[in-house]
Structure formats: C-alpha cells, structure tokens
C-alpha cells in the first residue's frame, strides 16, 4: 500500500499522541492511480462488557459527569419509548425513534460547550433538547406546530432538518460566521449513512476544508437509510474515508461506545477551536427501532442482526462500567425512568395545551413585514 490512508490511532498509542486519532492522507509515492484500499480501525474505548479496552483514549470525566451522561441516556431511552406510544395514540405526528443511538446523541452533545451550535438532522431531537430546547417544543415540532421551531434565545441550535444534507451546508456557513467574527465556538452537524451520499455532504466538507472552518460533521452510520443497507450506499471502505477527499480529518468510532464518542468529539472541537479546521466523525451505530412509526424494519433486517446489535447496547455497557465503579445501580435506572416518564407526561400535556396555529399567524410569519397582497389574503381567514 503506497498511497492509502492510515489511522494513526492504535491500541498502543501513547498519551501524548492521543489527539491524533484521525485518518491522515499519506504522501503519494509510487503508484499515483491506485485506489485507496487501506481500511481503518474503528476506535473503541468501552467494550460491550463494560470494560475499558483503551485506557489512553478514555476521556476525562468526573464521577458526577459520568452519572449525568448515564442519566441522560436512560432518560432519552425512556422518552423514546414513550414517544413511540404517543405516536401510536396519535398524540405525536412524525417521529423518528432514537433507541440504540443514545451514545452518539447524548455523548456528542455532552462533549461540546453550551454556546457551541448544533445543526441537526430529523432524528437528532435528543441533541437539541439536551442543548436547551424545551421538550414540549420538540413534541410541538412533531405535532406540526410552528412553536416547535421557535428556538429560545440563547439556545444555539437549528430546527431539525428534513432535506437530507441541507443542514451540513448551514453548519458550514454558521462556522464561517464564527470564524469571521473571530469567536471560538464550534458547530456540530449530524446526518446518517444515507446523508453521506448527498451532494450537499460533499459540498459542505469541501467548503469546510477550503476555508478551514470550525465544524464537526458527525455521521451516525446506523446501517440503514430507511431500508437501504450501508452496502448499497457507498463503495467506499468507510464514511470516514470521505474526509480524505475534502482534505479534512476523519475518524471512525464505535457509536455504541459513549466514551469513544466523547473522545472523538472533544478532540475535534479542540482542533476546531485551535483553528485547525473541520473533522468528519463516522460513528457506527444501530437504531433498535424502525426508521419511523410507519416503517416495518422486519422487511429489511433479520432478527439475528437485531440480536447482535442489542448485545452492544450503549446504555447496558455504560451501566456495567458504572456499576463496577459503584456509581450506578438498577434502582438508579428505575428512578430515572420514572422521572423521565413524569417529565414526558407533563411536557406532552403542555404541548397539547399550546394554542393552535392560525392561518393569519402563518401569513404573518412569512416576512418581517407582511406585504399588502398577503394582508388582503389574510382577511379571508379572519
């Protein structure tokens, strides 16, 4: 292999080198036309058994922080369980389940600062809620109410994006804004394995590379773009490899491992803040549930596959680790579940009690000043 890519990270890495977990382009040497064929390892810190398999890459986290991460992951799973039921009862509209992806969602948000900016895809509600969007607004968004997207002042997130990949370009633009204003914030944007096939994905990575922007492109590769498997999404060896073409850093991590997620995002954010540019993170994960409430995953996934992935459950493995450290018990999990249920119940009621949108209100939300023709059209609805 002469001109491939190589992941500098490996199990014997030393502490002072541990920032270099990224794929690097090696110099072209002898065979200029050879296709990159070198595979990359998948960065892992916490095994499914709850063991630390790479002490050097373990992110620094206090006991309180560890418990907080666990709290948020259990809360998110319970919220997801409840949301699926609420959807079936017709109390929510479009809802994209998140179970299985708690490590990527909770961990990546935990790894950035409160004033950093999040540009989510449609499934990434947990990240923006943990970043500050009130839960009832997330429910309102699902119920098709405009107030769902009315992000409170001081909460640096966009509304979930429906057009796959469009948010990647917004993240790039917001990151350029920080750079032009000489502010130190970073932007993180999310998409899935399907999203990495979009033109906007490549355009966003490319611009971020050219302008060296403080942005993190976080791909949650959960194996399926609705029903289409990853094998039919790309012939690239990994999504992380796509960073090479844009001249930015790339890394592939175990997305069921919250420590690997936090490590990768922290390193990427630090690099971004230091003016070293963008990073593409591919987190290999799995959604335990179907794509949406109207999808049937049994049509395209096997029971065996689902079973294999449930063994890798991000919450179970963190629980094992924390239990061994004496930081968590089954009672804690039960307590958080109850808290989450109560919070969901309270917030869905708040969403249901929020005043309905009106057509005149809709009309007035189109422009800063409603033009005359729209004022006239408004009269028909008053």
């Amino acid at each position, binding site marked *: 292999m002469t001109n491939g890519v190589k992941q500098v990270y490996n199990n014997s890495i030393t502490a002072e080198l541990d920032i270099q977990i990224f794929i690097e382009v090696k110099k072209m040497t002898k065979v200029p036309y050879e296709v990159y064929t070198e595979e990359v390892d998948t960065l892992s810190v916490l095994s499914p058994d709850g063991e630390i398999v790479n002490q050097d890459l373990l992110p620094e986290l206090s006991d309180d922080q560890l418990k907080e991460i666990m709290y948020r992951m259990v809360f998110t799973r319970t919220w997801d369980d409840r949301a699926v039921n609420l959807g079936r009862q017709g109390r929510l509209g479009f809802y994209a389940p998140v179970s299985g992806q708690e490590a990527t969602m909770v961990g990546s948000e935990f790894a950035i600062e409160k004033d950093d900016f999040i540009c989510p895809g449609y499934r990434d509600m947990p990240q923006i809620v943990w970043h500050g969007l009130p839960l009832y607004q997330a429910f309102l968004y699902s119920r098709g109410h405009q107030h769902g997207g009315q992000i409170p002042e001081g909460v640096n997130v966009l509304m979930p994006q429906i057009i796959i990949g469009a948010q990647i370009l917004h993240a790039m*633009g917001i990151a350029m*804004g920080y750079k032009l204003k000489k502010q130190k914030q970073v932007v993180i944007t999310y998409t899935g394995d399907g999203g990495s096939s979009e033109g906007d994905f490549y355009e966003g990575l490319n611009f971020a590379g050219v302008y060296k922007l403080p942005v993190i492109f976080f791909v949650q590769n959960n194996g399926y773009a609705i029903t289409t498997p990853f094998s039919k999404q790309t012939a690239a060896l990994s999504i992380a490899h796509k960073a090479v073409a844009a001249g930015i850093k790339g890394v592939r991590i175990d997305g069921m491992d919250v420590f690997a997620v936090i490590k990768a995002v922290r390193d990427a954010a630090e690099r971004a803040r230091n003016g070293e540019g963008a990073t593409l993170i591919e987190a290999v994960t799995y959604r335990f549930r179907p794509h949406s409430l109207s999808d049937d995953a049994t049509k395209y996934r096997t029971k065996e596959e689902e079973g294999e992935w449930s063994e890798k459950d991000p919450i179970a493995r963190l629980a094992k680790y924390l239990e061994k450290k004496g930081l968590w018990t089954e009672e804690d999990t039960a307590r958080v579940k109850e808290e989450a249920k109560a919070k969901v119940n309270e917030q869905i009621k708040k969403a249901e009690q929020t005043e309905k949108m009106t057509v005149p209100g809709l009309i007035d939300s189109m422009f800063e000043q409603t033009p005359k023709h729209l004022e006239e059209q408004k009269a028909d609805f008053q």
Partner: protein
Amino acid sequence: MAQMNMKEAIRDAMRVELSRDPNVVIFGEDVGNVGGVFRVTEGLQKEFGEERVFDTPLAESAIGGLAVGLGIQGFRPIAEIQFVGFIFEALDQIAVQAARMRYRSGGRYNSPIVFRTPFGGGVKAAELHTDALEGLLAQTPGIKVVVPSNPYDAKGLMIAAIRDNDPVFFMEHLNLYHAFRAEVPEGEYTVELGKANVVREGSDVTIIAYGLMVHTATKAAEELEKNGIKAEIIDLRTIAPIDIDTVIASVKKTNRAIVVQEAQKSAGVAAEVIAQINEKAILHLEAPVLRVAPPDTVYPFAQIEDAWLPTPARIVDAVNKVMNF
C-alpha cells in the same frame, strides 16, 4: 450625478452597503479576485478585503447554504449564482431553506440574503445561461423577486434588497448590463421593493412589463404613437410581490392592457397580473388582457433566440388586437 450603466450602478450599490454595514459580505464563483464573469463586483475585494468579498469553490448549493448559515449569524450575505440556469443546483437552499427560515423558526431566525444572478436573452450566450426563470421564484412563498430595467432603479433596488431582512432574488438582465448609461445619484438611496413605476404615460392602453421587456415595450409604444395610440408602460420592477395597485390605477384609466414577459407564456408573471386585474378591475376592461410571451418551450439555443423572444412588432400586434376588440 454620475452617469452609470446598470452593471456599474449595481456595483455602486454593493460598495455603498459594504462601506456602511460591516455585516455585508459578497461571495460566489469568481466574484472576488476578478470581480465575477461580468465584473459586476470588480474592485470590491481589493477595496474591502478577502473576508468581505471572496471566491468560493464551484458548488451552487453550498453557496446557497453558506448564505443561509451566515444569515443565521447576523451577516447580510450577497451570494452570486454565476448564471441563472445554475440556480437549479441551489434551489433547495434558495427556495426552501432561505425562503422558509423565518416561518420554520417562528421568527427566531431569518435569511437577510440577496441572491444575485444574471439572466435573460438577446446576447447569444451558452445554453442555460440566459433562461428567464423568475416564475420559479415568484411562485415560492417567502422570497421577493426583483428585476430592474435601468441603472437608477438597479442601484436603489439593490440597496433596498441588501437592507431587507428577508431573502431577495435579484435578477440582472445580461442585455442591460452595458446597454446604456443614465444618471445615478452618488451615495445611498433606495427604491422600495414591491413598487412598480409608470415609465411612460398614456391614455389608450397599458403595457405591463419588467426587465428588458420594458425597453422592448417602449419601442413598441413609439411605433404605436405614430398611429395615434398612446400606450402607458408600467415597469413592475419587483415581480414578487407585484404592485397591483399601480397596475389597476392605470387599467382604470386606459381600460385596455397587455402584459409582456420574456419567460414562457404559461403560469407566469403575466398570468398572475391578468388574474389580479380580473379580480380587481374586470368591469373597467373593454377587451381581454393579452399576453406577449414566448411559447411554452425550453429557452432556445442562441440561433433562434431573436425569433423566440417578444419583439416590438409582436407587442404592436397585441395592442392592435385589444384596441380593435
């Protein structure tokens, strides 16, 4: 007052706003170093620096997305799409992301963006460089569409567009960049978006047009005058929203109207103008309102462009039809 062609007037507008407001930034393909393929932004990078006026990689969707992101950050981006046919590559960012930002966020975010693009026929440019695609955006809720016909309006409309807190699609007719010079005031002034202008007064028939077609209509009006027909010409200037009040006031005076557009005939601006005349002034009409527009084909290859575009003769024919109805 300085004499400027339309290109210089648009450049002057951007220079005024770059000087006045540090949040104004300009970017697009080739707009920085050389000032764009038509040199509309020539000299601005040198004057204001590479952080204010810069070249982008060649990717229209990303240019649109960059504008949306910078808009969220409080900037006032002026994003150039190099030729109008290339907007299809950026249509999600323009017509969905920018145009819906205020609505989707309930007013928390907005897109104070000017998307500039050259368009229009008569210069024998390459395929997809000249199409009149204004109808696509005119039908898109949440975005304003401006088509200036002369240097004075172009500068004032551009300054108004840059200061507008909602997205504006600003279409610059290729055939008007260098067509003629006119007096343009120095410094800042605005021409209000959504206001039409009566560019020629007349009492017999109203000709509604915009962009290059204002000049084609003026030639027709000169011909008609030789036969004693006094045509009033309305330059819409902004086609979304349309200033229907100015149109209706004229129609109530002349009782006859035609609409001229460079875009294909069906489902376009002319159809909308006629619908609104019907809604507001049908009892004032002495004849049906006719359209002068190219057929519903693709915008043609350069060789038959002249035959395809509306001509003064076709406008005269249409006026004669409504006069003799």
